[in-house]
């Protein structure tokens, strides 16, 4: 995982990753457009270029740009590997742990809508916020009792504030 971070931190790695990303999006787009017969049938019919023209133009541009970035990355990689074979390898000093919080928060947020549907807004948001606030407070102060107390109270206040603003005041049906 450390090497993944070091890879992204290097310009060569970024070029390769960006190239793959844009080429990948373009390929998925092309497959989707070409598989849509209704859309493809609109091409070249009368003066209106149809709804397929712009998607195909944008996808072609994206594929070209992505491929060029990929080529640039591959060329840089080839040069880089030749150089590193002669010199000592670089230190991978960026910890992967910097992404764990982001990934964990994202996953818990993905689960939140279904918890809200089954438990209701107030308990679900409180259940979401409490462990997060306890953990983040503990990480800051390293005192468990303080983290527990502050986490539970702040989560309750946050959930209540959001409930009052969105559900009571703005009438959002949650």
């Amino acid at each position, binding site marked *: 995982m450390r090497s993944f971070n070091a890879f992204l931190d290097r310009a060569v790695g970024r070029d390769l990753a960006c190239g793959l990303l844009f080429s990948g999006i373009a390929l998925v787009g092309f497959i989707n457009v070409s598989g849509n017969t209704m859309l493809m049938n609109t091409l070249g019919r009368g003066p209106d270029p149809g709804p397929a023209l712009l*998607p195909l133009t944008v*996808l072609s541009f*994206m594929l070209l*740009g992505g491929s060029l970035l990929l080529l640039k990355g591959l060329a840089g990689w080839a040069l880089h590997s030749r150089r590193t074979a002669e010199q000592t390898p670089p230190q991978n000093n960026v910890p992967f742990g910097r992404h764990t919080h982001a990934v964990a*928060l994202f996953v818990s*947020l993905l689960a939140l809508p279904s918890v809200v549907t089954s438990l209701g807004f107030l308990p679900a948001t409180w259940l*979401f916020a409490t462990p997060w606030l306890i953990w983040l407070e503990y990480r800051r102060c390293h005192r468990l009792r303080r983290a527990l107390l502050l986490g539970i109270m702040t989560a309750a206040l946050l959930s209540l504030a959001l409930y009052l603003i969105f559900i009571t005041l703005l009438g959002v049906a949650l």
Partner: protein
Amino acid sequence: MLIDSFLTSLLATLASPWGLMLAVLGTLLGIVLGALPGVSSTMALAILLPLSFGMDPAFAILFLLCVFVASVYGGSISAILINIPGTPGAIVTQLDGHPLARAGRAKEALVYALIASSVGGVIGLALLVVTAPMLASIAMRFKSPEFTAIAVFGLVLLAYASPGSTVRGLLVGAVGLLCGMVGFDALTDVSRFTFDTRGLQGGIELVPLCVGLFGLAEVLRNLHGSHRATPEFDMQSTQLPLPNLRTIAGRWASMLRGSFIGAFVGAIPAAGSAIAVAIAYAQEMRFSRHPERFGHGAVEGVVGPEAANSSSIGGTLIPMMTLGVPGDAITAVLMGSLLIHGLRPGPMLFAENPGFVSSLYAGFFLALLLTLVIGLLLMRWLPWVLRIPSHTLLIGIALLCVVGAYAIRSSMADVYIMLFFGAVGYVLYLLSLPAAPLAFGLILGPLLEENLRRSLLLGRGSWEVFLHSPIAMGLFGLSLLAIILPLLAPLWVRLGNDIKRVRMH
């Protein structure tokens, strides 16, 4: 006529207790969020955007303008006190603001920043009021080919000015264009990029995209470092009496210079406040009799950039109001609010909804006035905001993003779209790609496609229709130049160096 409708709108807002309350609330939230490190003006606006859905369009834009204007000033509080700019526009303020605070002159620096912000804001507003109707009347003569070219030029320019390379910015913009095509085509009713998912059939709304891209992605980015304590600062120096008015007025030249620079630079699509403040700072240094003081607590180093930062708001609103092209990421979010209320910014807004345009001017003026009044009244307590633990704020914002995305259409699909773009924003950050062109692409995509197809229909399928429009050809030429220039610039530099080397030998 213009002053009459402006005054009527201003008085109507002042006479409405609900409108006034929203304006005060927006200003307070804007100052607090702007002051918090890690919460940019764009993020503040994106997370508060869903609150404005249930409001009348005039009140919604008033609330958001108050957040926008106040957050710009709020950004200078953390820049001065803890040397961390709250917003990108305050990046230069910290250079001299923080040394002033360390020298026990924090209150003085905060007051200078506030007054300069207010003066700059008024000048930016004046430029907007004077130039926007003129530009709109010119733009009203534009037809589909010109609007196609404007959309292309806007997209290229916005990608050009984004951090990183132009090509990468353009590719992110292209992803935004594709996002704008999701759903049913308005003319033929053929579906595009829906992947047989019902949630995508209605298309991708700008608001969940902005909330995810500028709100949630920032939370994901900042969460790892949220355990770090806020740097300490001398609270005593923020509790001193206000400096006298004559001393403040003595800085009029710096305020005016900064204001004009900010307003004109801000009016260039994509130039934004960060470029405006850098130019204003450089100019202040050039005009100063003691340039050596810059970086060590020169008051002009705070006044000029802060005036430029605030005046650029008026400037960035010009392309948005007159051409429907967002001036920067913040105006893109603001456009989202207008679109959700059925108001399409552009020249037709002046013809079809002049009352709304006047209420926007009045709202902007009120936002400046309230920022000045609330800023002065609460200056003693505002530094306490910096004591709010960042992790509490980040979890609160994450929840706000989810609830806010749902509140748009009471649809869970919008929540998942917001979460998706939050993840996309984080991936873009990891790859050092600019996120803003994605929003620009989504805004300009429908404008581009609609006008491109209409142009070709007018030209009976022939692309020659563009050749007959000198404005369109000029804009296409400039777009091409903006793409080619960054590719050729390194070659040009290398050629110059080679020539120099040959001459030396």
